[in-house]
């Protein structure tokens, strides 16, 4: 276990190093000149030159990367061109809102997905099963902005059950979380269905039935926990999908999180913010995958460590 852990950690660090190189090179590809952008339109060539000097843009590329990396290691993601604030400060201030939204998204996708999958498996090949599986296909085929706008229209504008937007109360959290969770619910319902069908075929389920246990007890005590565990271990992987999703969902609902920050930065071509968020997302994905790989064998001993 310790050797496996160490190897996975080293892999993760190497990938993160690669990620930093890719984001650094992307910064280089940007057609806009950062010094000119910071200086503004009325700046004299001398001012632009001094900003260039300050940012180290005249240094050779490997020295620039080294400056970039050592700043990163000190938690410095650079400064926003337009908001004149450190990117890390901006991100840090908006992190709680995004984490709340992601937590809501995870709850929605698990509750929806696992319930749909469970019902479909128990009513296998019935009309209900077919209907649920078609619904799960629609869930993975619907772009999040369409789901978001439709939910807004039906539940906020027409039915008036939830507020149209804003941040702070529980009722404002429901629709954005649901929007973020629909995609995952589609995947989880299909995984849960096939996992349940697999488990129900096992010998220990037949034994439990043969002992004369009630059907519900067999399902909820013996089958469901075994079907759910390997699926729940994959939540870490969802982080990556969510990092993309929050850009769309937060822009639809005006949710004041990292996604909205990114969206505004895109509109104004504020490169340091875009790059900072990309880097943080990549870290989140690497960590999420690492967690998924570590948790899975812990809760399911049948998985062998490689």
């Amino acid at each position: 276990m310790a050797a496996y852990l160490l190897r996975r950690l080293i892999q993760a660090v190497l990938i993160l190093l690669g990620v930093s190189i890719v984001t650094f090179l992307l910064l280089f590809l940007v057609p806009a000149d950062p010094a000119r952008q910071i200086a503004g339109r009325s700046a004299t060539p001398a001012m632009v030159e001094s900003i260039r000097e300050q940012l180290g843009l005249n240094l050779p590329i490997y020295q620039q990367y080294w400056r970039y990396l050592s700043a990163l290691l000190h938690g410095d993601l650079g400064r926003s061109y337009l908001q004149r604030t450190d990117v890390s400060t901006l991100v840090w201030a908006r992190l709680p809102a995004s984490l709340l939204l992601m937590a809501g998204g995870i709850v929605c996708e698990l509750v929806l997905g696992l319930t749909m999958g469970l019902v479909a498996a128990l009513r296998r090949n019935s009309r209900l099963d077919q209907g649920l599986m078609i619904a799960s296909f629609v869930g993975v085929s619907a772009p999040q902005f369409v789901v978001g706008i439709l939910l807004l229209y039906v539940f906020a504008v027409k039915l008036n059950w939830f507020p149209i937007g804003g941040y702070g109360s529980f009722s404002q959290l429901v629709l954005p979380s649901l929007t973020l969770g629909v995609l995952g619910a589609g995947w989880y319902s299909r995984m849960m269905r096939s996992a349940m069908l697999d488990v129900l075929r096992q010998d220990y389920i037949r034994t439990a039935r043969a002992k004369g246990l009630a059907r519900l007890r067999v399902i909820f005590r013996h089958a469901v926990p075994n079907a759910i565990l390997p699926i729940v271990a994959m939540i870490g992987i969802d982080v990556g999908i969510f990092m993309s999703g929050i850009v769309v969902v937060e822009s639809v609902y005006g949710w004041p999180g990292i996604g909205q920050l990114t969206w505004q930065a895109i509109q104004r071509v504020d490169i340091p913010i875009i790059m900072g968020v990309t880097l943080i997302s990549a870290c989140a994905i690497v960590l999420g995958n690492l967690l998924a790989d570590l948790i899975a064998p812990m809760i399911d001993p049948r998985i062998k460590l490689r």
Partner: protein
Amino acid sequence: MSVATAPEPVPAARHAPFQPPGIVGQLLRRPLALFGLVVILAIVVLAVTAPWIVPFDPNEQTFDGLTLEGSPLAPNARFWLGTDLLGRDLLSRLLYGARTSLLIGIAANGIAVAIGAFVGIVAGFFGGIVGAALMRFTDLMMAFPALLLAIVLAALFHPSLWIVVLVIAMVNWVQVARIIYTETRSLAQREFIEAERGLGAGNARILFRHVLPHLLSTVVVWGTLGISTTTLLEATLSYLGIGVQPPTPSWGNIIFENQTYFTSAPWLVFFPGLVIILLALSFNLVGDALRDILDPTQKGRH
């Protein structure tokens, strides 16, 4: 009840050669796949014939296309799906938008599958330092969230139709590369390849006579499923305003342009949203059925 002593059946279908006629027949027998095929066919026909069947010029701001207060018209006998914020016919814009969305979806996915297959085959078949480097690079790309990376790339370069295609392809080749790599590796180690080698066949012969034909089913499955992903990505980028630029209609940017009206004119979001979902759903249904038919052992998330 009998005690099972028979050996595990060999998964012969795993690398079964690709046989088109039988596959089409099996697809047509599945109701969901049939539905998907019909929808795809209908959208393709409408997109190709759009210039001849549109009731209005998609960019024409018709004189009677807005109410006296200047808001869009609801669906009516003259404008079947209503008009948009500039008084343009929504049906005509959707039909032309189908051309953009299909073109980008198919082209981007074609490029992504080509790059992915090339990387996967080179790394899986030849291996070595180049192969290892390619797969480490693929791992690295997987650390970036796909949509966010596409957003970054699209925001950095000035968006045009072909930039959007390239951006989407750059994001989507990664999964294909991983899958083709795994398939090629497992193929290269099988007995019939060993036997060929023993008979003196060279790399080229093994690659073109044996490996490539067996990879065709994977390419077909991903070539179909992937179009669903790429059309969704195009719609999302266009919705964020960094994909296809107005006035060229695409299903995503129609919603982008009109979303401020969605409370008073919901059809401007409803109809484009519906066609996006229908198209992505259809490619998903057909792709999933193809995967079932061609490779019964491989299921799960993609």
